[in-house]
């Protein structure tokens, strides 16, 4: 009897819920096959699909040079090696929890305190969000998620937990803001489908929008979950990437200002984005619910943070002077990079959603779509990857309800590379406009002296330059009313 390949494995193992067949990852593969390098491969694909913060790493490198004792492998730190290497208590090093609590407080402008006793470790935010699902929901239960949202939620929140994700679609018409109506609709749809809604998860600042939630909307949201008696999980992984006003309003601040059952409030945090340390797998679950803290802590056995890393971070994050300097410098660099990028895009007529946070922008390429459909979005995306040689992430992979939006990351590269990327975009947009002009020219020649009363929208030159393709939804060529008149 032979056990071959994938037979004899669990349903989890043989299904596709690992999510890796999503397009989000296809772009990565294209990059992996032909990665850009300024000297070795200057024509390669530039990675703009990876949300990483590489702008302020040398600040950390400087700190390490000045603080060799933070590493237990150096002569200065070796005395701590034995105890640290032996420390596997799932409470975590007290100094680590204290330092993280203080850091979180600092990032939120000192507006809300964090109790180190409520800090639970997890294997990155990936591990933290899954852990919370295990604590809060049973298989088959539903969790509301405003979309567009982080693509890997599909895997992280659902794969092993069996939880269902119920998208609350947000619209560009109001800048993708969450509304009471959309929440109520989503909740009602779930009820009709007999799905028990256990909670709602948001990312604030939002991935992929790069916006922070305003106070009024947040209070509306907290009232909503409170009324429905469902949990609220706030993924604040990008909290320190806010680079301009409005400032971050954390859920920790909101619950100080309004009546709310705190047992429903939980925060996911990580140092992967704010500090640019994704390799260190520093995930944090912070819950205001004692039972959840207790259960989560036991569960954290499955994904504890290396004590070596806890020790290093305890040292670095309790250096208040360094933390202040890092946070302010990081915000400045992010603001500059964001500004440079968005202005460059604007110069060629590409608009982005106005944002104040995150390591990416939410780019509006609807005008460039041949058809205002997801197929059109996919076509455009493939062209951007293969011809423009940029890996950007199509909005559909974020469960965006409207085609034509793309997330583009800017914080994982230096300015030179960004200029190259902008150059390629500029070239592409100009080419596209030229193509449209050519098509129009050909049409004018063939139509001869006929004057036709087309809508000004079609023939407005400036409009065509900025959005050459938003014409008939079905045909790639402008549909002549004259043709229609004849058939």
């Amino acid at each position, binding site marked *: 009897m*032979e*056990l*071959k*390949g*994938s037979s*004899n*494995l*669990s349903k*989890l*193992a043989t299904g596709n819920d*690992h999510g*890796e067949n999503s397009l989000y990852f296809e772009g990565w593969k294209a990059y992996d096959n032909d990665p850009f390098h300024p000297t070795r491969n200057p024509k390669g694909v530039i990675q703009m699909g990876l949300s990483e913060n*590489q702008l302020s*790493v*040398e600040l*950390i*490198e400087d700190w*390490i*040079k000045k603080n060799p004792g933070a590493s237990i*492998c*150096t*002569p200065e730190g*070796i005395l701590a*090696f*034995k105890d640290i*290497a*032996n*420390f*596997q208590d799932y409470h975590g090093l007290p100094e680590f929890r204290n330092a993280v609590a203080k850091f979180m407080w600092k990032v939120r402008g000192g507006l809300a305190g964090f109790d180190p006793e409520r800090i639970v470790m997890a*294997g*990155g935010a*990936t*591990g933290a969000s*899954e852990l919370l699902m*295990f*604590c*809060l929901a*049973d298989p088959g239960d539903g969790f509301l998620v405003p979309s567009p949202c982080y693509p890997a939620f599909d895997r*992280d929140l659902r794969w*092993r937990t069996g939880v269902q994700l119920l998208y609350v679609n947000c619209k560009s018409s109001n800048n993708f803001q969450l509304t009471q109506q959309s929440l109520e609709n989503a909740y009602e749809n779930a009820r009709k489908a007999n799905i028990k809604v*256990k909670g709602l998860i948001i990312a604030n600042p939002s991935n992929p929008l790069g916006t922070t939630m305003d106070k009024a909307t947040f209070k509306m949201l907290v009232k909503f979950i409170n009324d429905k008696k*469902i*949990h609220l999980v706030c993924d604040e992984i990008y909290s320190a990437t806010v680079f301009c006003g409005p400032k971050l309003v954390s859920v920790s601040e909101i619950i100080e200002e309004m009546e709310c059952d705190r*047992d*429903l409030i939980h925060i996911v945090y990580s140092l992967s984005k704010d500090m*640019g340390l*994704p390799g*260190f*797998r520093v995930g944090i679950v912070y819950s205001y619910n004692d*039972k959840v803290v207790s259960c989560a802590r*036991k*569960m954290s*056995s*499955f*994904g*504890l943070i*290396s*004590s*070596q890393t806890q020790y*290093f971070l305890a040292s670095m994050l309790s250096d208040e002077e360094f933390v202040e300097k890092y946070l302010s410098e990081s915000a400045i660099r992010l603001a500059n990079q964001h500004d440079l990028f968005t202005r460059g895009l604007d110069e060629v007529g590409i608009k982005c959603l106005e944002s104040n946070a995150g390591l990416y922008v939410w780019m509006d390429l609807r005008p460039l779509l041949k058809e205002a459909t997801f197929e059109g979005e996919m076509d455009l995306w493939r062209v951007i990857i293969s011809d423009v040689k940029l890996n950007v992430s199509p909005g559909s992979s974020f469960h965006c309800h409207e085609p034509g939006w793309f997330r583009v990351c800017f914080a994982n590269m230096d300015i030179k590379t960004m200029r190259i990327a902008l150059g390629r975009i500029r070239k592409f947009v100009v080419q596209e406009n030229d193509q449209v002009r050519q098509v129009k020219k050909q049409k004018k020649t063939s139509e001869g002296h006929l004057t036709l009363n087309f809508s000004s929208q079609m023939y407005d030159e400036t409009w065509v330059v900025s959005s050459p393709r938003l014409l008939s939804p079905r045909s790639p060529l402008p549909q002549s009313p004259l043709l229609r008149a004849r058939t």
Partner: protein
Amino acid sequence: MVAESERYLSVGLSKVALSETHGEDSPYFAGWKAYDENPYDELRDSAGVIQMGLAENQVSFDMVEKYLENNPANIGNETSTFRENALFQDYHGLKSFRKAMASFMEQIRGGRAKFDPDKIVITAGATAANELLTFILADPGDALLIPTPYYPGFDRDLRWRTGVNIIPIHSKSSNNFKITQESLESAYNEAMSKNMKVRGVLITNPSNPLGATITRPVLEGILEFVTSKNIHLVSDEIYSGSAFSSEEFVSISEILEARKYQESERVHIVYSLSKDLGLPGFRVGTIYSYNDHVVKTARRMSSFTLISSQTQQFLASMLSDRQFTENYIKTNRERLKKRQQMIVSVLENSGIQCLKGNAGLFCWMNMSPLLEECTKEQELDLWKLILHEVKLNISPGSSCHCSEPGWFRVCFANMSERTLEVALKRIHDFMSSRKKTWILFSSFKGRVSV
């Protein structure tokens, strides 16, 4: 007392969250709590509880420290690779780390098995590795067969979030707790009678808590059994480097290699550096699978539980230093053997027999002669007595699901030699006073009956 359903509604947590399968209410952990409240300290508190319930290896730490002294992290080097390392979150894990682990595992097996670095999946500790494999090999409601006595943590690691059941493969002291074909069949049938689909057998080799390696014939028998049933075999070899001699430890990997990997797709090995290298804090676990689909899926799932890249980098360096690893493996074995011999001889002199052991950080001792009735309750009474009066935390066999009451696991590698001497003296004194009491009692009984 609030009813289960009411409790569930009012707090709104999941069934997993409210279940007791985390296992922390077992005596295994209660002893830890007693220790935490009153820990023995060589210098300060000579009356505190000595922790003998913690399977940790502290006998060879000086060698790791020596390595560090000779190979300190150069801050200049550290910073130049820092950026790349801090950004490295690829779930394949650092290639250099996987190569070093593969090599280390080969050395532990005396070169009798080869390991391919590309079949190594990284996880944050063996705890995560075992749970992850369970998610991949079994569906909720299915069963894994596990020989008793077994590591108490399995109840949580394999069952809690996965919903998978454990069916014990009972073993007896009469044949030194060997895993027999009958016991395997019996466990399989028990699962069937409960309508549970058996997905695999999970063994720990060397065994925790027995402190003994599984012999080649028994391993071959288990492999035959899983093949005949077309199920998986997970071999947790976390104590492989703690076998007292390389030759006495036979890994399933050797058996597979000898038969040119026939039936290897059903075999998966768990390893960790927490015991052999004494680095439990670093959370270094690995899954080694001969099944490509399992490797691929496990790798994806490891996203929830990767090893810190900082730790991977450090270990890649240390474990690829052959001079260090060869010396460490050899010396560690010798020291553990010496400790075990020390404790076994004192126990024997005190009238306590141990299972003949050849591996691990603990002995499996038989205190059933001290029980008036061979029951679980009496075993727990004895355990409490030893905890509160003799001030030793040892692990009762019932927490390891041993089917015969009276057996205890006692750890010897998590303390200094001096502390071990103090602990052994306490045991010796306890047994002597028990003997005196027994002699008095029986002589008194004798007088009364006359």
